[in-house]
Protein backbone atom coordinates (compact mmCIF):
# COMPACT_ATOMS: atom_id res chain seq x y z
CA UNK A 1 0.00 0.00 0.00
CA UNK A 2 1.53 3.26 -1.07
CA UNK A 3 1.43 6.52 0.83
CA UNK A 4 -1.97 7.70 1.90
CA UNK A 5 -3.46 10.41 -0.25
CA UNK A 6 -5.11 13.56 0.99
CA UNK A 7 -8.59 12.01 0.71
CA UNK A 8 -7.65 9.01 2.84
CA UNK A 9 -6.14 11.20 5.55
CA UNK A 10 -9.29 13.35 5.64
CA UNK A 11 -11.44 10.23 5.72
CA UNK A 12 -9.49 8.66 8.58
CA UNK A 13 -9.63 11.88 10.60
CA UNK A 14 -13.39 12.06 10.02
CA UNK A 15 -13.82 8.40 10.91
CA UNK A 16 -11.97 8.86 14.21
CA UNK A 17 -14.08 11.95 14.95
CA UNK A 18 -17.30 10.07 14.11
CA UNK A 19 -16.38 7.16 16.40
CA UNK A 20 -15.39 9.54 19.21
CA UNK A 21 -18.58 11.60 19.00
CA UNK A 22 -20.81 8.52 18.79
CA UNK A 23 -19.04 6.98 21.81
CA UNK A 24 -19.59 10.22 23.72
CA UNK A 25 -23.21 10.14 22.58
CA UNK A 26 -23.69 6.67 24.06
CA UNK A 27 -21.77 7.26 27.29
CA UNK A 28 -22.89 10.77 28.31
CA UNK A 29 -25.38 10.72 31.17
CA UNK A 30 -27.28 13.84 30.21
CA UNK A 31 -29.78 13.23 27.41
CA UNK A 32 -29.43 16.77 26.02
CA UNK A 33 -25.63 16.38 25.73
CA UNK A 34 -26.22 13.00 24.15
CA UNK A 35 -28.42 14.61 21.50
CA UNK A 36 -25.84 17.33 20.82
CA UNK A 37 -23.09 14.74 20.29
CA UNK A 38 -25.48 12.92 17.95
CA UNK A 39 -25.82 16.11 15.87
CA UNK A 40 -22.01 16.28 15.65
CA UNK A 41 -21.93 12.66 14.46
CA UNK A 42 -24.53 13.41 11.79
CA UNK A 43 -22.55 16.40 10.50
CA UNK A 44 -19.38 14.29 10.27
CA UNK A 45 -21.33 11.59 8.41
CA UNK A 46 -22.53 14.26 5.96
CA UNK A 47 -18.91 15.21 5.20
CA UNK A 48 -18.07 11.53 4.68
CA UNK A 49 -20.96 11.30 2.19
CA UNK A 50 -19.45 14.28 0.37
CA UNK A 51 -16.12 12.43 0.16
CA UNK A 52 -17.99 9.44 -1.29
CA UNK A 53 -19.48 11.59 -4.09
CA UNK A 54 -23.05 11.60 -2.73
CA UNK A 55 -23.74 15.33 -2.59
CA UNK A 56 -27.52 15.03 -2.57
CA UNK A 57 -27.47 12.60 0.35
CA UNK A 58 -25.01 14.82 2.24
CA UNK A 59 -27.38 17.78 2.01
CA UNK A 60 -30.37 15.60 2.87
CA UNK A 61 -28.46 14.22 5.88
CA UNK A 62 -27.88 17.72 7.25
CA UNK A 63 -31.45 18.84 6.59
CA UNK A 64 -33.39 15.72 7.58
CA UNK A 65 -31.25 14.16 10.31
CA UNK A 66 -29.21 16.97 11.86
CA UNK A 67 -32.03 19.45 11.26
CA UNK A 68 -35.47 17.94 11.50
CA UNK A 69 -35.09 14.69 13.43
CA UNK A 70 -32.65 15.99 16.04
CA UNK A 71 -34.73 19.14 16.52
CA UNK A 72 -37.71 16.88 17.20
CA UNK A 73 -35.71 14.74 19.64
CA UNK A 74 -34.38 17.79 21.52
CA UNK A 75 -37.89 19.19 21.70
CA UNK A 76 -39.26 15.95 23.15
CA UNK A 77 -36.39 15.72 25.67
CA UNK A 78 -37.33 19.17 26.93
CA UNK A 79 -41.01 18.27 26.84
CA UNK A 80 -40.70 15.21 29.07
CA UNK A 81 -38.61 17.03 31.70
CA UNK A 82 -35.59 14.85 32.12
CA UNK A 83 -35.22 15.57 35.84
CA UNK A 84 -37.95 13.08 36.58
CA UNK A 85 -36.70 10.49 34.16
CA UNK A 86 -32.95 10.84 34.68
CA UNK A 87 -30.89 7.68 34.50
CA UNK A 88 -28.89 6.23 37.33
CA UNK A 89 -31.10 7.32 40.22
CA UNK A 90 -32.20 4.22 42.05
CA UNK A 91 -32.40 2.24 38.87
CA UNK A 92 -28.77 1.14 38.91
CA UNK A 93 -29.65 -2.13 40.61
CA UNK A 94 -32.02 -2.93 37.77
CA UNK A 95 -29.18 -3.17 35.28
CA UNK A 96 -27.99 -6.47 36.70
CA UNK A 97 -24.94 -8.54 35.91
CA UNK A 98 -26.56 -10.65 33.17
CA UNK A 99 -27.48 -7.50 31.27
CA UNK A 100 -23.92 -6.20 31.50
CA UNK A 101 -22.50 -9.55 30.39
CA UNK A 102 -24.96 -9.69 27.50
CA UNK A 103 -23.94 -6.18 26.48
CA UNK A 104 -20.25 -7.02 26.51
CA UNK A 105 -20.85 -10.26 24.61
CA UNK A 106 -22.94 -8.53 21.96
CA UNK A 107 -20.27 -5.86 21.55
CA UNK A 108 -17.51 -8.39 20.96
CA UNK A 109 -19.48 -10.79 18.75
CA UNK A 110 -21.11 -8.10 16.64
CA UNK A 111 -17.89 -6.16 16.14
CA UNK A 112 -15.89 -9.30 15.28
CA UNK A 113 -18.57 -10.41 12.83
CA UNK A 114 -18.82 -7.05 11.11
CA UNK A 115 -15.06 -6.58 10.89
CA UNK A 116 -14.54 -10.10 9.52
CA UNK A 117 -17.18 -9.36 6.94
CA UNK A 118 -15.54 -6.05 6.05
CA UNK A 119 -12.08 -7.59 5.65
CA UNK A 120 -13.00 -10.72 3.72
CA UNK A 121 -15.88 -9.56 1.54
CA UNK A 122 -15.69 -9.67 -2.20
CA UNK A 123 -17.45 -7.02 -4.19
CA UNK A 124 -19.44 -9.19 -6.54
CA UNK A 125 -21.68 -6.70 -8.31
CA UNK A 126 -21.20 -5.38 -11.80
CA UNK A 127 -20.18 -1.77 -12.18
CA UNK A 128 -23.06 0.54 -12.99
CA UNK A 129 -23.24 3.29 -15.52
CA UNK A 130 -23.07 6.18 -13.05
CA UNK A 131 -19.34 6.62 -12.61
CA UNK A 132 -18.02 9.75 -10.92
CA UNK A 133 -17.19 11.42 -14.22
CA UNK A 134 -20.65 10.75 -15.68
CA UNK A 135 -22.45 11.93 -12.54
CA UNK A 136 -20.32 15.05 -12.29
CA UNK A 137 -20.97 15.93 -15.93
CA UNK A 138 -24.75 15.64 -15.41
CA UNK A 139 -24.92 16.80 -11.79
CA UNK A 140 -25.51 14.64 -8.74
CA UNK A 141 -28.89 16.08 -7.74
CA UNK A 142 -30.12 15.95 -11.33
CA UNK A 143 -29.18 12.27 -11.57
CA UNK A 144 -30.93 11.39 -8.32
CA UNK A 145 -33.98 13.41 -9.32
CA UNK A 146 -34.23 11.75 -12.73
CA UNK A 147 -34.05 8.32 -11.09
CA UNK A 148 -36.56 9.21 -8.34
CA UNK A 149 -39.14 10.60 -10.76
CA UNK A 150 -38.46 7.97 -13.40
CA UNK A 151 -37.46 4.46 -12.47
CA UNK A 152 -38.43 4.80 -8.79
CA UNK A 153 -41.62 6.86 -9.20
CA UNK A 154 -43.92 4.29 -7.57
CA UNK A 155 -41.82 3.81 -4.39
CA UNK A 156 -41.54 7.60 -4.21
CA UNK A 157 -45.34 7.95 -4.18
CA UNK A 158 -45.61 5.17 -1.58
CA UNK A 159 -43.11 7.11 0.55
CA UNK A 160 -45.34 10.18 0.34
CA UNK A 161 -48.30 8.13 1.57
CA UNK A 162 -46.10 6.82 4.40
CA UNK A 163 -45.21 10.39 5.39
CA UNK A 164 -48.90 11.37 5.38
CA UNK A 165 -49.75 8.38 7.59
CA UNK A 166 -46.87 9.37 9.89
CA UNK A 167 -48.14 12.95 10.26
CA UNK A 168 -51.71 11.85 11.02
CA UNK A 169 -50.54 9.05 13.32
CA UNK A 170 -48.28 11.35 15.34
CA UNK A 171 -51.09 13.87 15.83
CA UNK A 172 -53.59 11.16 16.81
CA UNK A 173 -51.20 9.48 19.26
CA UNK A 174 -49.98 12.65 20.97
CA UNK A 175 -53.40 14.33 21.18
CA UNK A 176 -54.57 14.92 24.72
CA UNK A 177 -57.79 13.03 25.27
Amino acid at each position, binding site marked *: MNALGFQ*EIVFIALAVAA*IATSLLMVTTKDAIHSALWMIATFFIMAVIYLLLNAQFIAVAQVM*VYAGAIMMLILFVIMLVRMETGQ*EGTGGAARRSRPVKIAGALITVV*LLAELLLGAFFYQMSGRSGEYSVAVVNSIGSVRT*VGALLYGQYLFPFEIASILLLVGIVGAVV*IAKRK
Partner: protein
Amino acid sequence: MLPEIPATFCFILSGILFTIGAVGAILRRNVIVVFMCIELMLNAVNLVFIAAANALSSMDGSIFVFFIMTVAAVEAAVGLAIFVMVFRQRNTVDPYEIDLLKG
Protein backbone atom coordinates in the same frame (compact mmCIF):
# COMPACT_ATOMS: atom_id res chain seq x y z
CA MET B 1 -10.90 13.61 -10.80
CA LEU B 2 -10.65 12.76 -7.12
CA PRO B 3 -9.15 9.40 -6.16
CA GLU B 4 -11.41 6.81 -4.61
CA ILE B 5 -11.55 5.99 -0.91
CA PRO B 6 -11.34 2.18 -0.44
CA ALA B 7 -14.79 0.78 0.33
CA THR B 8 -13.26 -1.39 3.06
CA PHE B 9 -12.48 1.70 5.17
CA CYS B 10 -16.13 2.72 5.01
CA PHE B 11 -17.33 -0.79 5.85
CA ILE B 12 -15.08 -0.92 8.92
CA LEU B 13 -16.25 2.51 10.09
CA SER B 14 -19.84 1.48 9.52
CA GLY B 15 -19.35 -1.75 11.51
CA ILE B 16 -17.90 0.16 14.45
CA LEU B 17 -20.69 2.74 14.41
CA PHE B 18 -23.35 0.02 14.15
CA THR B 19 -21.84 -1.81 17.14
CA ILE B 20 -21.76 1.38 19.22
CA GLY B 21 -25.40 2.00 18.35
CA ALA B 22 -26.46 -1.56 19.16
CA VAL B 23 -24.69 -1.62 22.51
CA GLY B 24 -26.11 1.79 23.41
CA ALA B 25 -29.61 0.62 22.49
CA ILE B 26 -29.20 -2.37 24.83
CA LEU B 27 -27.52 -0.67 27.78
CA ARG B 28 -29.00 2.82 28.00
CA ARG B 29 -31.97 3.30 30.30
CA ASN B 30 -33.68 6.24 28.64
CA VAL B 31 -36.00 5.52 25.73
CA ILE B 32 -35.05 8.71 23.90
CA VAL B 33 -31.33 7.87 24.02
CA VAL B 34 -32.18 4.32 22.92
CA PHE B 35 -34.06 5.86 20.02
CA MET B 36 -31.03 7.98 19.12
CA CYS B 37 -28.85 4.85 19.15
CA ILE B 38 -31.25 3.24 16.67
CA GLU B 39 -30.89 6.31 14.45
CA LEU B 40 -27.11 5.86 14.66
CA MET B 41 -27.49 2.24 13.50
CA LEU B 42 -29.62 3.41 10.56
CA ASN B 43 -26.87 5.89 9.71
CA ALA B 44 -24.25 3.14 9.71
CA VAL B 45 -26.38 1.20 7.23
CA ASN B 46 -26.73 4.33 5.08
CA LEU B 47 -22.94 4.62 5.02
CA VAL B 48 -22.62 1.05 3.68
CA PHE B 49 -25.15 1.80 0.95
CA ILE B 50 -23.32 4.95 -0.12
CA ALA B 51 -19.87 3.33 -0.01
CA ALA B 52 -20.94 0.28 -2.01
CA ALA B 53 -22.77 2.41 -4.56
CA ASN B 54 -19.70 4.61 -4.90
CA ALA B 55 -17.41 1.60 -5.36
CA LEU B 56 -19.70 0.09 -7.99
CA SER B 57 -20.36 3.48 -9.63
CA SER B 58 -24.08 3.07 -9.20
CA MET B 59 -26.71 5.62 -8.17
CA ASP B 60 -29.09 3.18 -6.49
CA GLY B 61 -27.36 3.62 -3.14
CA SER B 62 -28.47 7.24 -2.97
CA ILE B 63 -32.04 6.24 -3.80
CA PHE B 64 -32.12 3.59 -1.09
CA VAL B 65 -30.66 5.99 1.47
CA PHE B 66 -33.30 8.53 0.49
CA PHE B 67 -36.05 6.02 1.29
CA ILE B 68 -34.34 4.97 4.53
CA MET B 69 -34.26 8.63 5.56
CA THR B 70 -37.97 8.96 4.78
CA VAL B 71 -38.78 5.95 6.94
CA ALA B 72 -36.50 7.26 9.71
CA ALA B 73 -38.28 10.62 9.69
CA VAL B 74 -41.71 8.98 9.96
CA GLU B 75 -40.36 6.68 12.66
CA ALA B 76 -39.03 9.69 14.61
CA ALA B 77 -42.38 11.50 14.43
CA VAL B 78 -44.49 8.52 15.49
CA GLY B 79 -41.98 7.16 18.03
CA LEU B 80 -41.55 10.47 19.80
CA ALA B 81 -45.32 10.94 19.89
CA ILE B 82 -45.55 7.56 21.59
CA PHE B 83 -42.84 8.58 24.10
CA VAL B 84 -44.74 11.77 24.95
CA MET B 85 -47.94 9.80 25.44
CA VAL B 86 -46.25 7.16 27.60
CA PHE B 87 -44.57 9.86 29.67
CA ARG B 88 -47.96 11.46 30.29
CA GLN B 89 -49.34 8.16 31.58
CA ARG B 90 -46.35 6.82 33.51
CA ASN B 91 -44.19 9.89 34.22
CA THR B 92 -41.02 8.01 33.27
CA VAL B 93 -38.74 7.43 30.29
CA ASP B 94 -37.08 4.31 31.70
CA PRO B 95 -37.68 1.41 29.29
CA TYR B 96 -37.76 -1.00 32.23
CA GLU B 97 -40.62 0.92 33.83
CA ILE B 98 -42.75 1.10 30.69
CA ASP B 99 -44.90 -2.01 30.82
CA LEU B 100 -48.22 -0.74 29.51
CA LEU B 101 -48.76 -3.89 27.46
CA LYS B 102 -48.42 -6.19 30.47
CA GLY B 103 -51.77 -7.83 31.13
